């Protein structure tokens, strides 16, 4: 018999380094999930993404057991990779820190489409483009 789903929880936490501190503890504790069991399994499964932000979607069942799937890296991470920068601008309105091409934006939108709540590719592209600008990246037609 399939187990009854009690809750779906979406988190973005650091790969290989999850601890019982918030947000892990605050979101899983009240659900009755064994926090240490989650951090052990998450850290083991994300050790090749250690230090990177990893989106995770958890299904918590009524018997307090859980399962989770790991999602594609956040757009911010992919954009930094595409632009070859370490971090985004702290003043994106005035200080630009790099460039990404429109085709890179499209590739990221395509890559993330399944994990974004955007309806279609065009909406996903607008979302990625806005995210890029908010990090101080300029969008250029070609490199």
């Amino acid at each position, binding site marked *: 018999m399939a187990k009854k789903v009690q809750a779906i929880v979406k988190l973005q936490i*650091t790969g290989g380094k999850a601890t019982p501190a918030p947000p892990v503890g605050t979101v899983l*504790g009240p659900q009755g999930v*064994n926090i240490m069991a989650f951090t*052990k399994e998450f850290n*083991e499964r994300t050790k090749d993404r250690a230090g990177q932000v990893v989106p995770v979607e958890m299904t918590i069942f009524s018997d307090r057991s859980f399962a989770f799937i790991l999602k594609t890296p956040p757009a911010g991470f992919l954009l930094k990779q595409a632009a070859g920068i370490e971090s985004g601008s702290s003043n994106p309105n005035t200080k630009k820190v790099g460039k990404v091409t429109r085709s890179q934006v499209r590739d990221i939108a395509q890559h993330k489409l399944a994990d974004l709540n955007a309806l279609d590719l065009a909406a996903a592209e607008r979302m990625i483009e806005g995210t890029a*600008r908010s990090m101080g990246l300029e969008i250029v037609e070609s490199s």
Partner: protein
Amino acid sequence: MEYCEIALTIPPEALEAVTDLLHRSGTGGVVIDDERGADLRAYLPCDERLDIRLADLRRRLTDLVEFFPGMSQMTERQRVVAEEDWANAWREHFHPVRVGRRLIVAPTWEPVSCQAGEVVVRLDPGMAFGTGTHASTVLCLQALEAEDLAGRAVLDVGTGSGILAVAAAMLGAAEVTAVDIDPLAVRIARQNAAVNGVSERVHVRYAELRDLLVGGLVPVSFAVANLTADILCDLAPDLGAAVAPGGLLVASGIVTSGRRDAEGALAASGLRVLRAAALDGWVAVWARRD
């Protein structure tokens, strides 16, 4: 420890930008509810830097209006949450569980009824690993139960809450040596041994496995190591040396994809891999020293 919970309701198109900003603000993670719109929760420690961090975060959120006009409609709520609020919440849901044919793992704070021949392990795991509900622990408990431990010396590597060491003693082991490199786990494992009245036979040591080899406390005829595939690979030579000729090792905590590496490392350490058991994506491996 107290944390400031920041709850934001934002336009969905700004989700990736705002989560990126929250990560950069040192929140250590974000909880996302995007079923209807986008509700985010993130936490900052209530310390002397909180005011500065919050002010910086607000300024950056305001800046986002230029890129996502809908951000002008963002709502923000704050509240303080205390560690006690969540750290013990899982206890309400920890009830006696039956593992295998005759083992029952039960929280120290709940009455349990059992029949003749059944063995009850009382447990308060605190923040240490091991409540008997995780597949890797279940596989080890079943292995302990299947073995005739009466009068034997048992080793538990990475004892966590002490559940396996205590269960081994309750199942008749004459002497159990348990080690962990986490001082918190050592303290909790000792408490759990005491609660079950097996402190005299369960020796919990704050040590590396290597320290036991040097100290002459091993080899033993039965060892259990509920760790991870990586740690098992690193410790394999020491695990091989900790098992006496003819003795058995049960290595657990292996994710399915790590099985080949773990088995290879054990084989290279003089152990003969006998079989493996799988449960919910986790594997335990039985290996003998000939």
